[in-house]
C-alpha cells in the first residue's frame, strides 16, 4: 500500500459492492437475493452480511430449484441459510412440471435452464419484489459487459439492452412502478480472479464440488459430465472414475467438470491463473450452442 488511506483493489471492489447493496435496500420496498449456491452468489451473500452487520440480512434469499441440482449445492445452501439465520424461499421447477405448468425438454441436450425463467418471474410477481440481487459479473460474457449495475426490468421481467438507464458516478436509479423491478448486480465489476482472491482472503465457504474430488463421469463434447439420474447417456458413452472439479455451478445435466487435483483454494487460484478457456466456455453446455445464447435468455428474464 502506497499510503495508509489506500485500499487494495479487492478492498475497493468490496467497498463498491457494499455501497450497491445498501443503496438498493434503502431505495426499494421489497428486496430479495437470488442464490444459486455458486461461488458468485456465495460472495454476494457474504458481502450482504457485511453490508448490514450487525443487523440480520434485511431481505430473504430466493433459490430457483430446478430439481437437477447437485446435492452438495443444496446442502451448502441450507448450511448458509442456517449459519446466517436467513429467510429462504424456494421456487421449484419440479413442482411446476408436476402441476403441468411446464413441460420438460426432451432429447440429448435437454436441460431445465429455460424452465427456470417462469417460476422465477412468478415468484418475483407473487412477492412483489422490486429489487432482485444477483451474482452476475460483466467479465463473464459479452452481453453482460453492457448491463447496468441496477438493471431495469419491465412488468414482464424483460431486459431491453437498447433502453437501459444511463448509470453515472455512483448515483443509482432504483425507481420502479408497480410490477416492475430492478435486478441489482453488486459484483458487476469483479473478475473471476477477483472472486477467487476474495474467497481466499475472506475464507468464504463454497460447495464441495468446486474442489477436486473423485466422481463417476463420462465424456461428452469435450467435457466430463457427472453420472446422474437426470442425464441420458448414449450407447457409446462410458462411465469412468476421475478426479474432477467444477468451475461453475449449474444443473447436473449441463454443467461439465474438468480433470483437476486442486483441493485447496491456492491450487484453484493457480489453475485459474493458467487456464486458457472462459468459465462458461469450459463448463456450460447451454452457452456453447449459439453465440447470442445469453443475450436471448437475458431478454426473457434470465440472469
Amino acid at each position, binding site marked *: 500500500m502506497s499510503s495508509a488511506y489506500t485500499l487494495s483493489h479487492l478492498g475497493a471492489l468490496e467497498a463498491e459492492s457494499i455501497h450497491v447493496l445498501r443503496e438498493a435496500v434503502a431505495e426499494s420496498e421489497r428486496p430479495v437475493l437470488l442464490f444459486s449456491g455458486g461461488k458468485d452468489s456465495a460472495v454476494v451473500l457474504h458481502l450482504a452480511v457485511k453490508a448490514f452487520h450487525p443487523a440480520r440480512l434485511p431481505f430473504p434469499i430466493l433459490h430457483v430449484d430446478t430439481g437437477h441440482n447437485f446435492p452438495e449445492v443444496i446442502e451448502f445452501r441450507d448450511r448458509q441459510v442456517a449459519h446466517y439465520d436467513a429467510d429462504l424461499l424456494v421456487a421449484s421447477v419440479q413442482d411446476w412440471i408436476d402441476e403441468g405448468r411446464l413441460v420438460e425438454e426432451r432429447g440429448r441436450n435437454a436441460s431445465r435452464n429455460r424452465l427456470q425463467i417462469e417460476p422465477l418471474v412468478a415468484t418475483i410477481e407473487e412477492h412483489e419484489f422490486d429489487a432482485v440481487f444477483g451474482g452476475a459479473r460483466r467479465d463473464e460474457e459479452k452481453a453482460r459487459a453492457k448491463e447496468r449495475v441496477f438493471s431495469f426490468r419491465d412488468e414482464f421481467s424483460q431486459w431491453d439492452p437498447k433502453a437501459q438507464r444511463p448509470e453515472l458516478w455512483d448515483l443509482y436509479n432504483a425507481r420502479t412502478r408497480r410490477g416492475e423491478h430492478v435486478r441489482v448486480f453488486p459484483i458487476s465489476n469483479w473478475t473471476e480472479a477477483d472472486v477467487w482472491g476474495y474467497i481466499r482472503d475472506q475464507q468464504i465457504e463454497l460447495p464441495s464440488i468446486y474442489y477436486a474430488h473423485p466422481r463417476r463421469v463420462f465424456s461428452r463434447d469435450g467435457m466430463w459430465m457427472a453420472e446422474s439420474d437426470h442425464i441420458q447417456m448414449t450407447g457409446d458413452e462410458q462411465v469412468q472414475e476421475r478426479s474432477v472439479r467444477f468451475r461453475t455451478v449449474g444443473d447436473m445435466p449441463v454443467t461439465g467438470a474438468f480433470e483437476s487435483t486442486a483441493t485447496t483454494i491456492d491450487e484453484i487460484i493457480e489453475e*485459474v491463473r493458467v487456464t486458457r478457456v472462459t468459465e462458461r466456455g469450459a463448463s456450460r453446455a447451454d452457452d456453447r450452442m449459439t453465440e447470442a445464447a445469453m443475450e436471448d435468455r437475458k431478454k426473457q428474464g434470465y440472469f
Partner: protein
Amino acid sequence: MTADTTDSMELVRLATTGSVDDGKSTLIGRLLLDTKQIFADQLEAIEEASRQRGTDYVDLALLTDGLRAEREQGITIDVAYRYFATPKRSFILADTPGHIQYTRNMVTGASTADVALILIDVRNGVIEQTRRHSFIASLLEVPHLVVCVNKMDLVDYDQAAYDAVVDDFRDFAARLNIHDLRFVPVSALRGDNVVDQSDHMPWYQGPPVLRLLEEIHIASDRNLIDVRFPVQYVIRPHRMDHQDYRGYAGQVASGVLKVGDEVVVLPSGYESRIAAIDTYDGPISEAAPPMSVTIRLEDDLDVSRGDMLARPNNMPHNGQDLDVMVCWMSDERGLHERDKLAIKHTTNWGRVMVKDFHYRLDINTLHRDEDATGLALNEIGRMRLRATRPILFDEYRRNRATGSFILVDESTNDTVGAGMVLGPAT
C-alpha cells in the same frame, strides 16, 4: 489471467473514447490480448468471425462488439466494461462509442474514470471528435488524459507527423481544464508502444501505453481534505446482543474521518463526535474514500438517510439554487425552462425546477448559444436549478461525489440527465 490477486494491486478506472475508424477497439483488443485476458475460446470465436468477414488478420475489434444489434450495424452502441490486470494494477475500462449521437455514453464512462484514453488517427490529426472527447473528459474532471496517436505504422513511424498532432492538441487543450496530459505514439494494429516498447520509434523516450497506465499516480486525486459522509442507511439491529446499536452506514465521499473527531450532522446542524467506525471485520480508527463503513456518534441524535456528516469548520454549501451544467440523455423528451424533475444527489432524492436556462454549449467549438431555450438528447447546457428543499453540495471541480447529480423523469422514472454543480446560483 496473468495477475495474482495480491493485496498490493491498485484499482484504476479508465474510460476510452474513439470513433469507429481510429482503432480504439483494436487498441483495447490488444491490451486484453497482451495482458492475457483473452481466452482460447474467445480468440477462436473472433478468428472464425474474421474469416467469415473476409479480413486477412484477426480483427481484434470483434472482441469488444457485444450485442447482436451492434454486430449487425458494425458499431458500438453503448458503454461496455472490460477488465484486465497487471501485477501492479487492476483496470476497469469503460469502453464508449465515439460518434456524435452517443455523447451520453461518453459522459457516463468518464463520470467514474481516473484516466481517459483518447485515440487520434495520426493521418487525420485533431478532428472535431477529438475535441468533443477531450472536452467531455475535462468537463467530467477526469484527472488524467492519455492521448494515443495511433496508426503510426501508416506514416512510416514519422516523428514529424506525431509532433504536429501533439502540437495541435496542446493548442486546443490550453482552452480546457486538463490537469495531466500525456501523449504516446502507437500502432494498435501492430502492437507498437501498446504493451511493449516499439523498435520502430527510437525517438520516443516515454513508456508504452500499458506501462503509463501502471505508473500514473492516482491515489492523490482523491479529496482527503473536506470531510463528507452522506448517510446511506441506518443500521438498527433490534437484536438482544445489540439492543441500543445505532450505526450510520455509508461510503466516505471525501476527507478522512477519525474516531474522536468533532462532526456536524447536516442539515440539522447538531454537533457530536465520532464514537466508532465499524466494519464487519472489526472497528477501525480512520476511514477515507472510497471505504464503506458504519459510523456511530457519541450523542443520540436523529440522523437518517440523506443526511450528511461534515466537520463544523468545513461544511458543504446548503442551498436551493444551484448553478449547474447538465448533459441531457433522453431521446423521448427534451429539457426546457420551468420543467420539473426528480433529482438524486448523494443519497438524497428531491425535486427541482429549471429556472433560468443560460446557454447551450456546442461541444465541438465550445461556442455558447445563448439563444437556445433548452436541451435535446446529447446536448450540454448551463442553467439554474431551484430545489424544493435545500441541497448539501460542493462544486464538482472540488468534489466529484458531492458535486454530481442525476435528473429523473417523474412519470417514466428514466434517468434523463446528468449534472455537475458549478456553484451556488446567485
